[in-house]
C-alpha cells in the first residue's frame, strides 16, 4: 500500500501543529466559535448531539494492521471503546473531547493517517472498490488513481472552497462495487481496443435531497489525462456551480440545469486547454504510484481446496460463512473475505477497540497485513489463502464477527441517525436492529437471497437509502418519527434511484412493512434465482403497494 514520502510526512505534521494551535487558541478564548467552526470542520471535527465527532479519513478504504491498532487505541484512550465505520469508507468517533483532538491527530499522523478534508466544501476522501487488487473481474487496481487524486486534491488551492462538497469514486472492475454513478465524479477503469487503460467518466451523480444518477460524459479518457480532465470538470463546476442556495450547490444540479451535452462541451473546452500542461500524468509517475499497490506475493497454496472441503463438512457455521462472506479471488488458491460488522441486532458499522485489535492481528497473520473498509460498512481481508480460511473464521468467531450475512437482508447500511447526528430527523440504528432481529434466521435470509437494505435518518442520505433495493428514509412528521420506504434502488453498474412506495410508517410499523414487502417478493418471484431487485424491475411497485396498503383502503 501507499507509504508517505517526506513531503506527505511534513505536510501532515505541519497540519497537526496548525490545528493544535487553533484548538489551543479556541480553548483560550482567543478565537470565537464562528471563526473556529470552519477550521474544525476542515479537520474533521463536528459537533453532534452528545459530544464532538471526529471523522478520520481512510483513503480509498485501505489500511494496514498498524493503522487499525491506532484506530483501536484512539477508541480506547480518547473515546468510549468503539468506532463507527461509515459509508464513505471512513471511521467516526462519537465522543472525543475537543481538548484531546490534537493528541488524536498526532497519534494518527504516526501511522500516516489524518482527518483532513473529511468535511467542508472540498474534495473528500476518494473511495474505491473494496476488493481492489483482489477481484477476479478487475481490469486494473483503482487505488493508484485514487491515490493520485488524493495527492492532487489535498489542500488544492483552487478547489478548497467549492460551492459544495465533492466526492469521487473509482472502480476497476466489471461489477461496480464502489457505486461510482452516485458520486460527483465516478471513474470506471477500462481498457480500449488497443489494450490501453483509461476511464469512463460519469459526472453529476449523487444522493441527498435530489438523487441523480451520474451522466457519462466520456466513454474513454486516457490514463494520462486523469488530472487534466478532472481539473476541467472541477473548474466548470467551481465557476458555474450555484453558491446562492446550499441545496442546489452540488454539481448534479449544475449538470441537470445545464444539460449533459452542454456541460460536457464546457468540460471538453476546458480540457482542450489543459491536456498538454503539467497536469498530464507522466507514465513513470503513474507506474511509481502503482508500485506501492503491487499485490502481495501470493505463493501457490493448493492444499486449500482439501482443507476447505474437510472443514465445511465438519463445521456447519464455517460452511455458511464460506458460502456467504467469501468472495472469488483472481488467484484460485486465495479468497477475499468480508468481515460482517452487521451481527444480528448489532449496530451497523460499529467495532469495539478489542475487535479492531483482533482484526489487526488476523490481518497480520493471515491476510498480508491488508485491511479494507467497504462502503457497505464492513471490513474486508482482500487476500486470504483458502488454506487459512478456517483459521480466520475461528478468529472471527472468537470476537463475535463471523456473522454469515454478506449481501443478505441483515447486512444493512445505516447512518448514525438521530441517536447521534445533529442533522438527523429520525433514528436509523434502532430500525436496523429491529429488522435484523426479525430476519435473524440465516435460513430465511438465504431463502430471500441478495437484498440491499439501506437506512438514512434524514434526507442527506448518508445511509444511501435511494440506492437500496429497499430504502428507508426517516423523517419527522408532527413531532414524531416516520419512515418512508423506497423500492428498486441500486448502486451498482445498473444504478437506479428507488421510488417511494406510498405513505410512511410509524416506528412500530416499519419492520412489519419490510416483512410484507419481502413476503410479497417471495410470493411473486419466478424462482429462487430471481433477486429482489430483478423481481421489482419486472413487476413494478403495484403488487407491493397492494400488499402494504390495500387492506387499509378496504377498511376505509
Amino acid at each position, binding site marked *: 500500500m501507499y507509504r508517505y514520502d517526506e513531503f506527505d510526512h511534513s505536510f501532515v505534521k505541519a497540519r497537526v501543529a496548525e490545528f493544535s494551535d487553533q484548538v489551543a487558541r479556541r480553548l483560550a478564548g482567543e478565537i470565537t466559535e464562528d471563526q473556529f467552526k470552519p477550521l474544525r470542520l476542515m479537520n474533521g471535527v463536528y459537533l453532534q*448531539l452528545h459530544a464532538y465527532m471526529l471523522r478520520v479519513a481512510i483513503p480509498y478504504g485501505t489500511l494496514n494492521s498498524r493503522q487499525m491498532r491506532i484506530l483501536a487505541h484512539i477508541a480506547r484512550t480518547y473515546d468510549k471503546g468503539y468506532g463507527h465505520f461509515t459509508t464513505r469508507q471512513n471511521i467516526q468517533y462519537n465522543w472525543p473531547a475537543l481538548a484531546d483532538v490534537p493528541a488524536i491527530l498526532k497519534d494518527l499522523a504516526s501511522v500516516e493517517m489524518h482527518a483532513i478534508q473529511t468535511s467542508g466544501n472540498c474534495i473528500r476522501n476518494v473511495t474505491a472498490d473494496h476488493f481492489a487488487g483482489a477481484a477476479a473481474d478487475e481490469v486494473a487496481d483503482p487505488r493508484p488513481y485514487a491515490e493520485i487524486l488524493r495527492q492532487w486534491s489535498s489542500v488544492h488551492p483552487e478547489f478548497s472552497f467549492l460551492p459544495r462538497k465533492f466526492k469521487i469514486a473509482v472502480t476497476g472492475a466489471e461489477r461496480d462495487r464502489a457505486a461510482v454513478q452516485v458520486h460527483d465524479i465516478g471513474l470506471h477503469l477500462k481498457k480500449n481496443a488497443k489494450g490501453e487503460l483509461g476511464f469512463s467518466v460519469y459526472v453529476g451523480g449523487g444522493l441527498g435531497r435530489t438523487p441523480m444518477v451520474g451522466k457519462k460524459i466520456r466513454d474513454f479518457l486516457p490514463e494520462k489525462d486523469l488530472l487534466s480532465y478532472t481539473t476541467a470538470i472541477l473548474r466548470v463546476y467551481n465557476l458555474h456551480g450555484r453558491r446562492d442556495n446550499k441545496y442546489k450547490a452540488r454539481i448534479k444540479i449544475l449538470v441537470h440545469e445545464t444539460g449533459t451535452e452542454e456541460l460536457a462541451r464546457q468540460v471538453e473546452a476546458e480540457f482542450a486547454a489543459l491536456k498538454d500542461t503539467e497536469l498530464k500524468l507522466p507514465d513513470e509517475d503513474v507506474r511509481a504510484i502503482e508500485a506501492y499497490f503491487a499485490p502481495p506475493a501470493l505463493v501457490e497454496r493448493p492444499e486449500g481446496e482439501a482443507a476447505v472441503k474437510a472443514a465445511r463438512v465438519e463445521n456447519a457455521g464455517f460452511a455458511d460463512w464460506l458460502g456467504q462472506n467469501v468472495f472469488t479471488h483472481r488467484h484460485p488458491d486465495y479468497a477475499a473475505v468480508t468481515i460482517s460488522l452487521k451481527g444480528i441486532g448489532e449496530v451497523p458499522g460499529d467495532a469495539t477497540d478489542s475487535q479492531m485489535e483482533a482484526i489487526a492481528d488476523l490481518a497480520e497473520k493471515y491476510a498480508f497485513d491488508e485491511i479494507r473498509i467497504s462502503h457497505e460498512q464492513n471490513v474486508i481481508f482482500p487476500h486470504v489463502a483458502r488454506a487459512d480460511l478456517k483459521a480466520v473464521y475461528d478468529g472471527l468467531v472468537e470476537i463475535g464477527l463471523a456473522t454469515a450475512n454478506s449481501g443478505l437482508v441483515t447486512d444493512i447500511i445505516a447512518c448514525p441517525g438521530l441517536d447521534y447526528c445533529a442533522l438527523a430527523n429520525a433514528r436509523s440504528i434502532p430500525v436496523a436492529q429491529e429488522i435484523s432481529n426479525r430476519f435473524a434466521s440465516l435460513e430465511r435470509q438465504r431463502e430471500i437471497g441478495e437484498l440491499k437494505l439501506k437506512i438514512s435518518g434524514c434526507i442527506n442520505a448518508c445511509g444511501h437509502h435511494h440506492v437500496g433495493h429497499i430504502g428507508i428514509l426517516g423523517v419527522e412528521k408532527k413531532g414524531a418519527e416516520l419512515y418512508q420506504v423506497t423500492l428498486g434502488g441500486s448502486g451498482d453498474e445498473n444504478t437506479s434511484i428507488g421510488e417511494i412506495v406510498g405513505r410512511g410508517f410509524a416506528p412500530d410499523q416499519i419492520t412489519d412493512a419490510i416483512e410484507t414487502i419481502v413476503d410479497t417478493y417471495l410470493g411473486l418471484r419466478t424462482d429462487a434465482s430471481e433477486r429482489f431487485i430483478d423481481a421489482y424491475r419486472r413487476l413494478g411497485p403495484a403488487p407491493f403497494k397492494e400488499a402494504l396498503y390495500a387492506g387499509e383502503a378496504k377498511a376505509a
Partner: protein
Amino acid sequence: MKILTANRLTDGEAVWLASDRSWAETIDAAEIARDKAGEETLERAGEAAAQNNEVVDVNLIDVDMVDGRIVPVRLRERIRAAGPTFRADLGKQAHSTISNVA
C-alpha cells in the same frame, strides 16, 4: 415552558443552564422559564456564556413536566438528555437515574 441547553466547549458535553447559572450535566437541574421574561433571562445568560467561551450551540428548547420531571418535547432533545436510545451504557443515562423516554 422552556429551558436553555448548549454543549460545553472543551468536550462537547450536553449541558443545561441551572438556576445558579452553572451549566448542569443533567437536565433535571435545568432552570425553567415559564414566561417571555424568563426566556429572555435565560437567553441573556446563554449569550454571555457563549461569549465567555464556556459553551457553544446555545438553544432554548420546549419542555413539559411529566411526573415532576423535565421532559423535552422533541425526541432530539430527549435523546440529548439521556444518550443513544440503543445503548443504555452511554450518555447521561449511564450515570444517572435519567431513563430514555424515546
